[in-house]
């Protein structure tokens, strides 16, 4: 009788554990913070939604700055964002913030670490699904974002995918068949920096 039971129960049980919710938080904050900021001694975590911060009006403001409309599935007003303030002793030394961005093959989880002036210290994909994943995750590609700021990304037109002058124009897409994911990455990082700016300095700045 147990034979019957287990044979069928596996059909049920395996499915229930197959999927887990996608979030913008770090997979393992203790490990990830130490890796990105080796000199850190701790961190503060803050959860925030655009609904709490300013609602639809704020979303429209951010969309204008981003240069693109938010995606109804990925960028809902209720999405809970998380940012981490990294501490050395009692003093903050930087921030970590991640966003979900729709990629060609599903979600791209884009995480950036910045200094106090919100300049990118490090960028990596926490999650990416692509045949060219190794090219996107390579230091050769992600390292190009080091030192960039929101001001640099304001020169990137997301909707038209046009780059004017500035350091962002120099970023090389090493992928062969994934220009969509390259564009999604630029959009995701721009969104990440805009949101972080709002979270740190408040709406209406």
């Amino acid at each position, binding site marked *: *009788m*147990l*034979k*019957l*039971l*287990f*044979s*069928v*129960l*596996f*059909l*049920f*049980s*395996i*499915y*229930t*554990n*197959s*999927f*887990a*919710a*996608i*979030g913008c*938080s770090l*997979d*393992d904050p203790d490990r990830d913070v130490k890796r990105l900021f080796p000199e850190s001694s701790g961190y503060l975590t803050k959860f925030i939604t655009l609904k709490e911060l300013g609602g639809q009006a704020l979303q429209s403001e951010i969309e204008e700055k981003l240069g693109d409309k938010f995606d109804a*599935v*990925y960028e809902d007003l209720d999405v809970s964002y998380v940012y981490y303030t990294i501490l050395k002793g009692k003093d903050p030394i930087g921030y970590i913030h991640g966003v*979900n961005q*729709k990629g*060609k*093959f*599903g*979600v791209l989880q884009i995480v950036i670490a910045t200094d106090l002036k919100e300049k990118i210290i490090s960028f990596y994909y*926490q*999650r*990416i*699904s*692509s*045949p060219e*994943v190794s090219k996107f995750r390579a230091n050769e590609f992600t390292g190009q974002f080091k030192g960039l700021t929101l001001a640099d990304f304001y020169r990137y037109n997301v909707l038209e995918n046009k780059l004017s002058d500035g350091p962002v124009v120099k970023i090389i897409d090493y992928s062969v068949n994934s220009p969509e994911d390259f564009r999604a990455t630029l959009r995701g990082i721009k969104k990440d920096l805009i949101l972080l700016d709002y979270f740190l300095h408040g709406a209406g700045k």
Partner: protein
Amino acid sequence: MKILTVAFKNLQRKKIRTFLTIGGVAIAVAVLVSLMGFDTGYQKSLTNDIDKMGYQVLVTAKGCPYEAATLMLKGGGGLRYMEQSVFDKIAKDPRIERISPQLAATEFDKDRQNGQGGIILYMGVSNSYLELKPWSKFKSGQWFSSDDADEVIIGYEAAELEQRVAGDQIFIPNLNKVLKVVGIFERTGTQDDGIMFIPLATAQRIFDLPGKLTGIGIKLKDIGSLGDFEESLYNEPGIQVISMAQVKGTIFNLVSSSKVMTNSVAIIAILIAVIGVVNTILMSVFERTKEIGVMKAIGASRLDIFHIIWLETTLICVLGGFFGEIIAILGTSLVEHIIRQTLPYAPAGKLVIITPVLLLGSFLGAVIMGLIAGIYPAFRASSMRPVEAIRSGD
């Protein structure tokens, strides 16, 4: 009415003691209602889950009965397969109304579940799948464009969690394969909500399992022929036949065994509550010995005293029963959460169903409990001799 007022006022004189005693009864009733609600809810949800599988018989390859554990331990491997020829042979049986072949295949994705990795289950199905499950409707998109298209249809829950919409593409890293999402199913409230469906031929091709199946779902024209049908399949080599009725019975039997345990806990809780009530009222009676003596001396009959004490006990149990039911109703979500965390498999749907009949029954049970628990203290109080009672009270 006067007796009721006296009984109520007596209880109010020792508020904390009364409150704690009512609390004890309330907890016992809440436990009882929750357990009985779980019994009803679990059976209903499980029956619904099994019925919504759409078939009465599942044929699988003969093999390790602990496939679930094997699957987990091997990180998605360890499934047993049978040849498609078995399906072709069984499909000719005239007793069958609908039949659907399936091929389950798993892939490990290291990025899932916050970087801990997780298994994705792909289910290869044919067009007959929708005939077995006519309640499956599309939230968006449609069925596969062909029998071997590189396409996927996603269950409602999986699509929500993976944030997928029709038109998206899915990349399977280990197979280096790209599939197009052509449809999202509406919520069915079953395990199908978490599955990625692909055409059977596609599944056999991309997972390199040509002509292989993991299961065959069968619905018979006449459920009465189930026994004969199963009997005829037992002679087929390499397969095992699982009747959903048997599975349901087996699970219910297992649940019944554990129910004996949980019901014992509920009975013990009720017994403790009853003893607590008897003890409280008895203490109250002893404390009021002189008072009872005076009441008798000024004309109260034995029956009057009996009624007052009996009513006090019953009031405690009535109030305990009432609050216990409120606790049970308010705590349903919490109980469900705990059960889902504890049980290895919990069916979809409500696990704890508290019906009006259950509430009424439990309430009446609490009243009867009060009536029984009150007999002895009421008898003791009514049996006191006035003179002795007044003297001992001094």
